[in-house]
């Protein structure tokens, strides 16, 4: 299985992934990135903040960005004024 690295850029500062994870394919890596964003934002939400500025770059071992997941992409956001993000 190929190894993917999930580098994160957001309000907590950059979190590089030095270890990487072996996953079936790029689609699985994207799913994991989305799952992770949801998990982290829900924890932040419990602490009172939802900050959707941020992204995860999924890279291969050579440092090529294969997929980018923006935090906002992981959610459907409905605001009180009726707007949807």
């Amino acid at each position, binding site marked *: 299985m190929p190894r993917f690295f999930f580098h*994160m850029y957001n309000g*907590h500062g950059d979190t590089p992934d030095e270890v990487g*994870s072996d996953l079936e394919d790029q689609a699985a890596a994207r799913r*994991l*990135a989305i799952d992770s964003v949801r998990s*982290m934002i829900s*924890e932040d939400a419990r602490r009172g903040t939802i900050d959707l500025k941020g992204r995860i770059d999924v890279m291969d071992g050579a440092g090529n960005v294969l997929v980018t997941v923006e935090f906002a992409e992981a959610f459907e956001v409905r605001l009180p004024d009726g707007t949807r993000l």
Partner: protein
Amino acid sequence: MIEKLLLKLRARDVVSPEEEAAIRDTIAEVEDVPARKTVVKRGETLNRSVLLIEGLMCRYKDLRNGRRQITALHVAGDFLDLHGFTLKHLDHDVMSLSPCRVAYASHERLTRITEDYPHLTRLLWFSTNLDAAIHREWELSLGQRIGAVRAAHLICELHTRLQIVGLVREHDFELPLNQTELGECLGLTVVHTNRVLKELRERGLAHFKKAVVTIHDMDQLKAFAEFDPTYLYLASQAR
């Protein structure tokens, strides 16, 4: 071979030479198992229990969507599958995380212990009760503690448990699992786990790298985790 188990039990009560011999007599077989091998499968009929001699093992349950929760970690000296002695099959799987040496105690001989050695029986009962106490603490972590505190608490717990069996060095200890598996203990994805570890690093508390946990400031780590080892029942008393 059962020295670590004896260290664990003797930290809590006296184990007589006769009782020690009785434990040794239960061991029917010793096996070296590679990392990531399921040693006890959910549902299989059991006639022996696993005693961990060396290495790191876990109990886990999977959801159909592939998500895994590691529900317990077991260190050397844990008679981890005494549960199976009375349950006769398990509702979960037991897997090695690192290369492990395990001993198998036959249920037949364990039955004899329960008949002939009431105090030793209570000590083994204590050890399954201790497993339950650790499960409760993990429940509290999973339900109520935020990720970074949850990770800090687990590090404090493992440090304490490994210290009892002589497996911690001055500032660090080996924790032979990867970040995905650590996340499966914490109920976090591997990416979330990475963020949590980064927070512990940046707070100057602890560091997890290449299967080694380094503790930078034990007092601060315990304070951050609100770690109270009462649930590990560390006092030696008649049981």
